[in-house]
């Protein structure tokens, strides 16, 4: 039994948990921005995938720091498509997000062939990572780990202590009332979606540059969708999603370390997805999403 205990809570699991936590938490923070502004972003997963590709490409060409920046910008660029489609043209937000995810299945393949050569459609060459920070007890960690924590604190501060945060939340709760008080709902929603893209892109960049050191097709493994579940479990608050991401990151870490005779490996591999399903089943009705999330808003419309 002590062996199992080590596999569940050991230091190796903890280190692995942190590595899994970073991209998930970043993506979930992004999701917090778009959903609190009133826009659903199913395309987070696709934006992360773009981030993984552009991160690897950027690191290859201009070094890891620039790579992370390029990954972030690529997320913003893809998010801009989603913002134009959903905020300006008011098309169904889920449809637009799904379209972005489908684009993310094809575009990186195309780009890989163009950038890395024929036969390289599914992966990039190895790319350089940022120099690691040595932390006593935990070993070497990526500088993106502390950056993530800083960004998390910053997000909490923006949402709860700034005018921008208040306006952003009002756009997602009651856009009409917000507009009548002078909040530019359209701008707030654009901001929410673009910030979301930045976080998702950075999360993708962390995956390819820092965690793996290479882009490979499918490396994101649906983290963007798990982020959406983390949002629900965290009840759309920064502190809430920090804890829910810890839970999901832990299940992901377990897929690496948990090896038990009487549990099938296929089951362990699908643990993050099964836990997500269970979380959805238990919490979907107990939480309170932003009131106006998913509803298109037309500025100045009478209804």
């Amino acid at each position, binding site marked *: 039994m002590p062996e199992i205990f080590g596999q569940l809570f050991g230091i190796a699991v903890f280190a692995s948990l942190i590595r899994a936590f970073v991209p998930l938490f970043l993506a979930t923070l992004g999701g917090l921005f778009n959903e609190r502004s009133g826009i659903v972003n199913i395309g987070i997963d696709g934006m992360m995938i773009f981030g993984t590709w552009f991160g690897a490409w950027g690191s290859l060409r201009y070094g890891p720091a620039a790579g992370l920046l390029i990954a972030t910008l690529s997320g913003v660029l893809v998010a801009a498509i989603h913002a134009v489609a959903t905020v300006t043209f008011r098309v169904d937000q889920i449809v637009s997000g*799904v379209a972005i995810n*489908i*684009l993310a299945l*094809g575009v990186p393949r195309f780009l890989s062939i163009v950038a890395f050569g024929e036969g390289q459609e599914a992966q990039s060459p190895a790319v350089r990572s940022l120099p690691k920070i040595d932390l006593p007890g935990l070993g070497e960690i990526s500088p993106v780990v502390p950056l993530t924590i800083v960004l998390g604190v910053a997000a909490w501060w923006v949402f709860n202590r700034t005018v921008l945060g208040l306006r952003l939340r009002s756009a997602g709760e009651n856009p009409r009332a917000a507009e009548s008080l002078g909040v530019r709902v359209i701008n707030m929603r654009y901001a929410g979606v673009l910030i979301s893209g930045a976080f998702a892109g950075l999360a993708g960049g962390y995956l390819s540059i820092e965690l793996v050191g290479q882009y490979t097709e499918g490396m994101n493994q649906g983290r963007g969708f798990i982020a959406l579940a983390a949002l629900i479990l965290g009840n759309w608050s920064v502190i809430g999603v920090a804890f829910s991401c810890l839970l999901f990151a832990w299940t992901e870490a377990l897929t690496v370390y948990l090896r038990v005779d009487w549990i099938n490996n296929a089951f362990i591999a*699908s643990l993050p997805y099964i836990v997500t399903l269970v979380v*959805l089943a238990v919490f979907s009705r107990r939480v309170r999403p932003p009131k106006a999330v998913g509803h298109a808003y037309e500025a100045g419309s009478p209804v």
Partner: protein
Amino acid sequence: MKTEERLPAAPPPEPERPARRQLWAEQLRDLGYRLLAPAASLIFAAVVGALIILVVQGSTEDVADVAGAMWSYGVENKDSLAFILGRATPLILAGLATAIAFKAGLFNIGVEGQYAIGMLTAAVVGSQLQAPTVIHLPLTVLAGMAGGLLWALIPALLRVYRGAHEVISTIMMNYVASAILLYLLAGPLKDLNQAGDVAQLRTEPVQDTARVGRMAGFFNSLGFDFRPSVPLTWFLVLALVAAVVYALTIRRTRFGYELRVLGTNPRAAEPSGIRTNAMFMKAMLLSGAVAGLVGLQEVLALEGVMKIDYVRGFGFAGIAIALLGRNSGLGIVAAALLFAFLDRSATGIELRTEVPSEVIIILQGVLILSIVVAFELVRRLAARRRLQETHERA
């Protein structure tokens, strides 16, 4: 007399019945509006595709090359039609599966996993059962549908009883499906006569009594000249019949009506006597069952086994096709043919040009985004026209 006096006065309960000719003109214009959006987005996608090639390759010659290759492989080649029809078969079924859920206002993003499980269950029944064709083949097809249905059951239950959004849950089911598939094909269901690496993992072959034939012979007897090996099978007939049944069900039956009410105005559904939860269940399960048919052409006709590297992506293409075809039976068939044509011409681009054939995947992605935007713009245009006309009448 009375009615004539009442009608011109302010808001009439029913619009004045237009003359028949006017009705025709309106219908024609409606049709124009309906075709405007797909046409505009097709042109837009083609322009984006051309621009991408221009940016990447830097010469207009490449654009011409790609167009030429698409023409010669997609249209000119004598086997093209067979390839396109064969490819359209699973695409039609995937589009229908997605559309059934769409009609009820549900997003079944899980067609991808549902058809994988359907292939597996069909392969098991097809290879393990001993029975004459009349029993074996229908049972095998039903097994495929049951597999897809089973995989849609969990998201359906979670949605109805636990309020879990089906987009996330169906995606999660996709990932669980691939893990289970890998496990079963590498272990319990592995064909022990096969040796080799992971890519070779497969079930035992489906028996002859559960196989479905190719269709080249039939077409050739009609005067076509297809190679006998073209991947065109009798599943095409199944897909077309499914499209017709779908269209009739949506338009002519009570179930179809309730589905439409639920999809267009969920709040009005319950007060008008529609049991929404039961309808959600039925729509999702039916969607899953049809999804279970998507991969059967490969298992029962083309390959005769379920392989770990089966053709993926039909589920996601199905979403695009349902959107493009506006969830109508005819529209889905047309959109599936378009996607099949694009897939076929990708082969031409691969073989004939310097441009990566993945440009076609980008084209398909752009098409989805531009089609939803185009439909929205056309809807606004039509609404504005209607408003104008109402003003003029008043």
